[in-house]
């Protein structure tokens, strides 16, 4: 039973689905049939007087009992308003009526002309039939459909207004209110008559001088002038003027803005573009006006000279320093540095003509050249762990190896420098002098963190702040001399105290070199990209010396001073990953690959930094609740009294210990506040698409504490305004007219514009 009902339900569902999918056409036919039947029955009942009829009926009933039930249509007996078409039938023999039956009598009647007889005969012979007319139901359906389409189209005219009203910021009802503003003069004047004698006199004058009084308010001249330019034209004209004015003001504003832009990069790009344009012009000028071009050329040369003389690209400016610090972390900064260096090289490059000159000059040049190479070094060792950052990897490698091998013999200020002067095994005195200069310069520049050496600071220290780097560098530089002393003591060399104090001899340079070497080694230890740690271990230099130096270094740099932060115990898990670099070559290769791929980002340290940041945020802070001007004078330059400051600076209590205190790899956010969350919106409300939208609507306050009067009025405008006691009529057809008029006007205006554009 249940099963059946279920089936039924299913069927019904299917049916309903089917019916919904396609529009149903009415099934009036059978309904009408039934109606007809009822009619007949009632009619037959009414006429009960005729006996014969009764008999007939009885007979019919009997015959119906025996045979098959056949629908019999009753006879039409009375005039009725509603009569079914189905009741009409051919009474009699139940035979079909033929045309010949009707035409039979025609032959006999003499009144019919022979012509019509012929025609009728033809008709009788012809087998063509007229198409049966479409059924009433179908025709009605068509009629309804057409009517509906018409009505729908009619009603759709309102869609513009409806959309507009839905979008409107404010709707004021009743809709067709008279504007409350000043009325037009015509309206006032028409309902007013001259009464006082003065007024009458004035009017008499006016009428005498052919001036209009009420109806056309404008004089003929005025009207003519008005007609000279139609409203639409005037509007277009005004719009054009407005546009021109606006454009001008935009350009002015833009120029002003550009002048005020502080961004150097912007100006650089701007100037570059200008330069390009200038070059183009110059090329043209060469063709057309060679004299002018020459002059320009001279000017350019002069400018170049000036720039060369200036210290602009010497890497000593504030910008360069900051970039040097940033270079480690920021690729952009690195690039900028490189560009700067290139520019410098270009500028300081001696022109070929000046190369072959006196030896003295050459010497100068050499000195000059020392500087750029020195600077350039910095860029090459930007990020020792990252091979992509190095311009020429293999070359460098070779140089480095060379250096390592040559350590006892070669004495150089820096490994890079030695690389340049590799071929000169025997040093001249001049060169030593030069190097002396170099080292001195280093000493001087050691204070600046942006020198090339900053870049060679090893990877370990990368995590620390730039300041720490700098300070360490300083230490390194300062400890040079002490190193020398120590080295002397350790090696029991034959160097004298004089040499170490005054003359920067080979002996002096040697320990310095060692120091560099050490640096190199540390670098190689951590950077698997340079797989030449073996030679360094083969280094004949005694390890004890190294250790001694390290010790010295430790003594020279106090860790607590350099590292202001406590060392992080969580860094322990990091160590194995570093140590793994000393695995087999294959693994190392893979590691290299991975490291290359992820050269820029260090996820672990980022995480640690994040955690540290959050911890910092959670620490108790001093809250300054001081409001200026309360209880004493306030204003620019006035400081509130100490007493007050003390009173209103409140130290918050330290929060309970963090939950992730002992979990090194987890950050547990403790921002959620249970008591607050019941007041907070926990899911995005429907009209908004993302939380930013929602927050932006929340951000701007509405009240008069924060906004000016006009803004408040605008902000708190109610959506629907109704007037007390005014009947609001439904929307009238006039609104539609207004809308259409406005639309047509706008279309006319646009059409005119288009025409104009075409003409242009």
């Amino acid at each position, binding site marked *: 039973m249940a099963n059946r009902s279920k089936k039924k339900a299913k069927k019904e569902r299917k049916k309903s689905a089917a019916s*919904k999918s396609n529009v149903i056409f009415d099934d009036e036919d059978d309904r009408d049939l039934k109606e007809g039947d009822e009619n007949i029955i009632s009619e037959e009942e009414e006429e009960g007087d005729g006996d014969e009829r009764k008999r007939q009926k009885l007979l019919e009933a009997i015959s119906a009992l025996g045979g098959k039930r056949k629908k019999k249509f009753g006879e039409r007996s009375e005039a009725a308003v509603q009569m079914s078409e189905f009741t009409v039938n051919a009474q009699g023999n139940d035979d079909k009526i033929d045309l010949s039956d009707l035409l039979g009598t025609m032959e006999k009647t003499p009144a019919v002309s022979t012509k019509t007889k012929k025609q009728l005969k033809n008709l009788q012979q012809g087998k063509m039939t007229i198409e049966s007319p479409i059924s009433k139901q179908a025709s009605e359906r068509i009629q309804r459909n057409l009517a509906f389409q018409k009505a729908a189209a009619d009603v759709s005219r309102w869609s513009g207004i409806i959309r507009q009203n839905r979008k409107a910021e404010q709707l004021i009802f009743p809709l067709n209110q008279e504007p409350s503003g000043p009325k037009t003069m015509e309206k006032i004047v028409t309902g007013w008559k001259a009464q006082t004698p003065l007024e009458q006199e004035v009017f008499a004058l006016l009428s005498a001088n052919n001036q209009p009084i009420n109806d056309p308010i404008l004089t003929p001249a005025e009207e003519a002038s008005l007609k000279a330019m139609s409203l639409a034209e005037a509007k277009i004209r005004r719009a054009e003027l407005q546009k021109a004015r606006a454009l001008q003001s935009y350009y002015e504003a833009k120029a002003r803005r550009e002048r005020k832009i502080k961004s150097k990069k912007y100006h650089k790009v701007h100037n570059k573009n200008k330069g390009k344009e200038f070059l183009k012009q110059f090329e043209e000028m060469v063709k057309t006006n060679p004299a002018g071009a020459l002059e320009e050329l001279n000017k350019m040369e002069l400018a170049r000279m000036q720039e060369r003389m200036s210290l602009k690209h010497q890497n000593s400016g504030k910008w360069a320093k900051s970039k040097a610090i940033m270079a480690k972390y920021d690729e952009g900064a690195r690039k900028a540095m490189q560009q700067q260096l290139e520019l410098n090289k270009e500028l300081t490059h001696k022109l070929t003509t000046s190369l072959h000159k006196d030896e003295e000059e050459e010497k100068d040049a050499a000195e000059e050249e020392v500087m750029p190479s020195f600077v350039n070094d910095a860029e090459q060792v930007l990020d020792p762990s990252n091979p992509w950052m190095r311009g020429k990897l293999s070359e460098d490698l070779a140089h480095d190896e060379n250096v390592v091998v040559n350590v006892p013999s070669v004495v150089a200020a820096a490994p890079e420098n030695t690389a340049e002067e590799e071929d000169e095994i025997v040093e001249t005195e001049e060169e030593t002098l030069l190097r002396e200069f170099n080292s001195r310069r280093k000493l001087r520049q050691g204070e600046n963190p942006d020198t090339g050496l900053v870049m060679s600071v090893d990877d370990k220290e990368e995590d620390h702040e730039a300041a720490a780097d700098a300070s360490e560098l300083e230490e390194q530089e300062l400890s040079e001399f002490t190193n020398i002393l120590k080295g002397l003591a350790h090696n029991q060399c034959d160097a004298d105290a004089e040499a170490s104090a005054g003359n920067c001899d080979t002996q002096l340079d040697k320990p310095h070199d060692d120091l560099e070497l050490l640096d190199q080694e540390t670098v190689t230890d951590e950077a698997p990209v340079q797989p030449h740690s073996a030679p360094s271990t083969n280094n004949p230099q005694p390890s004890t010396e190294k250790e001694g130096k390290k010790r010295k270094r430790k003594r020279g740099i106090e860790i607590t001073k350099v590292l202001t932060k406590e060392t992080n115990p969580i860094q322990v898990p990091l160590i194995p990953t570093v140590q793994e670099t000393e695995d087999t070559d294959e693994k190392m290769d893979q590691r290299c690959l991975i490291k290359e791929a992820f050269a820029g980002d260090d996820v672990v340290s980022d995480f640690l930094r994040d955690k540290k940041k959050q911890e910092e945020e959670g620490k108790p802070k001093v809250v300054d609740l001081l409001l200026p001007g309360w209880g004493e004078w306030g204003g620019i330059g006035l400081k509130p009294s100490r007493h007050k400051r003390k009173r209103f600076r409140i130290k918050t209590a330290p929060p309970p210990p963090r939950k992730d205190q002992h979990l090194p790899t987890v950050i547990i956010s403790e921002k959620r506040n249970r008591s607050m969350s019941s007041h907070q919106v926990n899911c995005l409300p429907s009209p908004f698409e993302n939380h930013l939208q929602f927050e932006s609507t929340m951000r701007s306050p509405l009240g008069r504490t924060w906004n000016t009067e006009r803004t408040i009025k605008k902000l708190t405008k109610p959506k629907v305004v109704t007037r007390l006691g005014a009947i609001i009529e439904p929307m009238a057809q006039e609104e539609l007219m207004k809308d259409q008029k406005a639309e047509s006007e706008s279309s006319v205006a646009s059409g005119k514009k288009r025409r104009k554009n075409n003409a242009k």
Partner: protein
Amino acid sequence: MFFHFIDTMKVKVLSRNPDDFVRETKLDIQRVPRNYDPTLHPFELSREYTRALNATKLERVFAKPFVASLDGHRDGVNCMAKHTKSLSTLLSGSCDGQVKVWNLTKHECVRTLQAHESFVRGMVVRYCGTSFFTVGEDKTIKQWKMEAPGYGEEEEPLKTILGKTVFTGVDHHWKDGVFATCGQQVDIWDEQRSSPIRSFTWGVDSFSSVRFNPVQTELLGSCASDRSIVLYDMREAAPLKKVIMTMRTNTLSWNPMEAYYFTCANEDYNLYTYDMRFLDRPIVVHTDHVSAVLDVDYSPTGQEFVSASFDKTIRIFRKDGSNSREVYHTKRMQHVICVKWSSDSKYILSGSDEMNIRLWKASASEKLGVLVPRERQAVNYNQKLKEKFQHFPQIRRIARHRHLPKLIYRQTKELNIMKEARRRKERNVRKHSKPGSVPPVSEKDKPVVAVVQ
């Protein structure tokens, strides 16, 4: 020496421009200097949140919508009509054939007339407001003068039309002297003639209400007993279109500002808003009633509508809101049969089974009467605050809270459980049948059985 010192010394004196703080006349507003520097006014969000919370609470505190009850009928109020030109006049017809004219400002009955033998089924005021039409179960249409008869004069209709069948509703054209009645068929009548100028039938059915479109004034809508809504154009010979729903529609109301939208009150406890051009699917389904909805009327602004239900409540819906924004009920109000929204959009009138007509405020907490500008500003500001913070849970909770009679409260819960059960079952059927064979049907598609052309 001393003078020399004075010469060089600069003496700083506090000096202010009186224009900044002195009013020109006594009638001017006092100038209040303000500094809008945001640092001086911190915590704007939290402060405004508190204000919004307070505004919401106050709105609930002041929500007293019931204004007056008009008693005097001796049987249930079956129909009402607004006066087209006078706000303070209301007409009501009861089940015993009596028609009363009320003065709303005085809360009193101005005129009583025995219009029909039995039920007054429908009533409408002519667009000019000088006369009104009533139809009754005694198969007559009567036209009455709006003015009361003079002393000694008998209360007589201007015109009486005897029909062949019972009339169940009447509505007047908004601009011409044409009115429409419904009963066994929908008839369009010219005021000057005693026979209809046009009558529409479509199958065998009886109609319960007919309404003219107030904007596109030639269009009509009617509700038939065969669960259908039929649309007509007065100028056409045939009806336009018909939509058959799962249950019967009692009345419909056209939006007076948006020509092609109408809302119909259905027996299945819901109201449906249709776009007349696309009848195969209602645009919005308005739920919340717990019994058949008997009447619906649009606010003259077209932004909201009010519905009367057999569950003894009135609910106010936004035109595009699927849930009601307000529910009105009193202990003594029985099944609400008819409801009207006053033509200044400030009041709602409801006629119910227990012979009373009740006058309600359309917005429950609004202050009646003229507001001084400062009050107006405060109201506007509070309104905007409530709007801004409406999504905050605490504010939403307070704003949504309504007291309901226990019966209705329980029934609502029950209905929700039933709805959920049905949904669950549907889900299960879908889960256990061949994928794609039982497609999900939207709630909007369910009420429509067919659209007939």
